[in-house]
C-alpha cells in the first residue's frame, strides 16, 4: 500500500502537523506570545494564521509537483 505518493504525502503531512500543532500549543500554553507584533505592526496570531493557510497551499503545490514526477497512472495498484 506504500506508494511513492503515499510516502511523500506522509512526510508533508508531518511537516504541516508540526506547523499546526505549534500554533495550537502556542495558543493553549503561551497565549500572550500571540500578541507580539513582529512584522509591520501585525500581531503573531494573524501572521501565523495567514502563514498556516499559505503553508497549506505551498505544501499542496509541492505535493502536486513531486507526485507528478512519476507520471499519472490511474489505478496503478491494480484496483485492489
Amino acid at each position: 500500500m506504500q506508494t511513492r505518493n503515499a510516502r511523500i504525502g506522509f512526510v508533508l503531512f508531518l511537516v504541516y502537523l508540526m506547523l499546526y500543532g505549534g500554533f495550537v500549543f502556542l495558543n493553549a500554553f503561551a497565549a500572550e506570545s500571540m500578541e507580539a507584533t513582529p512584522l509591520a505592526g501585525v500581531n503573531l496570531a494573524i501572521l501565523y494564521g495567514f502563514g498556516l493557510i499559505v503553508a497549506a497551499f505551498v505544501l499542496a503545490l509541492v505535493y502536486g509537483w513531486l507526485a507528478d514526477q512519476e507520471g499519472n497512472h490511474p489505478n496503478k495498484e491494480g484496483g485492489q
Partner: protein
Amino acid sequence: MIYEPSVVAVVVFLIFVGITLGLSFYLGSRAKSSQGYFAAHGQIPWFINGVAFAGDYLSAASFLGICGMIAFYGYDGFLYSIGYLAGWIVALFVVAEPMKRLGKFTFADALDAKFGSRGIKLAAGISTLAVSLFYLIPQMVGAGVLIQPLLGFPHWVGVLLVGATVIVIVVTAGMVSTTYVQFLKGSLLVVFSFVLTVIILTRGFEVKPGGNDGHAFRQLGPFPAETDINQWQLPSELTAASRLETRSDSDLPIVRFEDATLGRPSYWSLHPVDSDQVLLLEAQTLSRTEDGKTLVNGQIKGEEKGEPELHPIGHVSQLPGGATKTGPLGPLSFFSTLQDSEVVLWANQTVTDTDGQPITIFHQKPTPGSRVLRPGEHPRFKGIRSGQWTDKLDFLSLMLALFCGTASLPHILIRYYTVKDEASARKSTIVGIASIGFFYVLTLYLGLGAMTSGSLDVTNSNMAAPLLAKSISEWLFAIISAIAFTTVLGTVSGLILASAGAVTHDLIANFMGIQLSDHEKVRVAKIASVAVGAVAILLGIQFEALNVSYLVGWAFSIAASANLPSLVMLLFWKGVTRQGVIAAVVVGMTSSLGWILASGDTFSKVYGLPAESAWVPFSQPGIVTIPLGFFTLIVVSWMTRKTQDA
C-alpha cells in the same frame, strides 16, 4: 432589527435560484445511470471539481458563522477558518488518492474494499447518515436565518423553501448538476468576498459615536467606582438610579435611570476602565410586555422602517493618533491600524428589572484593537486564557476535531468519485485548497469589516456578512444573500446525495442484499433523498434557536471519531480486520455522540440545565473519542486476527 424585503434583493435572489434550478434540469436530463447519478460518470474535469469542493465545503457555517463570530468577538472566529483549512491537508496527503483507488460510490465502499463485509457497509452507512444529518441541521437553520431578512418570511418558511428546492435539485439530476451548482456558487462566493474585501480596505476606518442610523450611544464618566452612584455628577435628565440584580457576580453591573430625554427609563452598564474608575455606557434593551409584545429600548417594536427598533451597532471609537478617518488601507496596515484603535463590541446579559420581569441588556464593550486581534475572547475559546486544564483540553479537542473532521465528511469524500483518476483527485484537492484558503484569508477582513461597519444586528451574529454588504449597497446585499442562499442549497444537496448513496448502496443493496437494477438504484436513491430532505426540514424547524457553528462542530467531531480511524489505519496497517473496522466505526460514533449529549454545552443550550451538572469534564469530545476509535480498531483487530489464525 426590522428587515424589510427589498425589490432588488428579491429579484436578484429569484434570478439566482432560477438559474440554479434551470441548470439542474438541463444537466439532469443527461444523467440517467446510477454511475451518472452518484458519481457524475467520473467525468467531471478536475478544476471544476476542485472549485466544487470549495462550494461544498464553504457552507453556511463558514460564510455566515465565521464572519459573524469575528464581527462580534474578533480573532476567535478565524481559529475555525484555520482549523477547517488544516483539515484539507489530511484530505490531500492521506485520504484523497486511496479513496479514489478503493471506492466507487460511497465512503463505505472504500472501507470495505478489502473485506466485502456486510457489517462494515452497515456501520459505515449508518455513520454516513448520522454525520450528514448533523451537518444538515445547521444548514437548514442557516437557510431560515437568511430567508427572514431577505424575503420577510418566518423561519419555518425559509427552511421549507430550501428543503423543497434542494429535493427538486437532487431528484432531477444527482451529482452532475450538484457539482456544477457547487462550482458556480464556489466561484461566486470567492469572487464577491474578494470584492467586499477590496471595498472594506478602500473604505478604511472612521470614528463614529454609534451605528449607521445616526444614533449616538451616550457615554458618561469616568466616575470613582467606590462611591455611591447618587453622589456622581450626573446630567440632570438622569434621575432615580437603581442597580438591577444580575444573574451572576461576573456580570457587569447594570443601572436603570428615569430618563427625561427619552421620557422613559434608560439602562446603562458600568464599564471598568481601571482599578478604581468606571464609565457609564448607554445600553439597549429587549423585553416583553405582559401581552407578549416585543419591547425594544422600552418601546413596542415597529414593523416598518422608521418605527422603533434596536439600533444597528459596530463602530470604531478611537483611531491611532486621535485621527477621525483613515482613508484607504493596505492589507497589512488594515490590521496594524486596528491594533492601535479602540472598537466598541457588544455583549448581552439578562437581568431582573425593577418590576421583577426579566430584561435583556445589550451593553457596549469598548475594546482595544490589540484585544480584538488576539485569540481567546470568545467563551468557546476561553481555554486559551484560562488556567484550568479542562478548558485547555476543550480547546485542543476542538482544534483536533477540525483537523481530523474534514477528511471524514461523507459529502466531501464522495466528491472523489466524480473525477476520472487519482491524479485528478489530487489536482482537484489542490484547487480546492487554493480557493478555500483564499476565502478563509478573506473571512478575517470580512468579519473585521463587519465589526466596524455600523450595520450589525445586535441580536443576530449570523447576519453579519449580508448586513456588511447592505451597508455598502443594496445590490451587493442582494447578491451576497443570494450567494449565501445558494451556498446552503449546494451544501444541502451534497449532503442529501451522500445520505441517499449510503441508503441505496450500503444499506439496501449491500447490507440487505436486495438486488437492484441500475434504474431501480436511481429510483430508490431519489426516494431516499426525499425522505432525508423531509427529516432535515423537520429538524431545521425544530432546532431554530441553536447556534449554527456549534452544530457544525458536532458533525465534525462525530465524523472524525467514527470514520477517520478506520480510513487511516486501513492505509497504514496491514493487520486491520473486518471486526476491527466495524468496532472502530461503532465505538467512535456512539462515544462522540454520547459525549456531546452529556456535555456542558448541550446541558446549558439544549436541555436548559446548568453546565456544571454535565457528566463529562469538557464539551468537545475529539481528544478522547478520536484516539478511542484508533485504540478500539487496533485492539479488536489484534484480538480477531488471533482467532482467525488459530
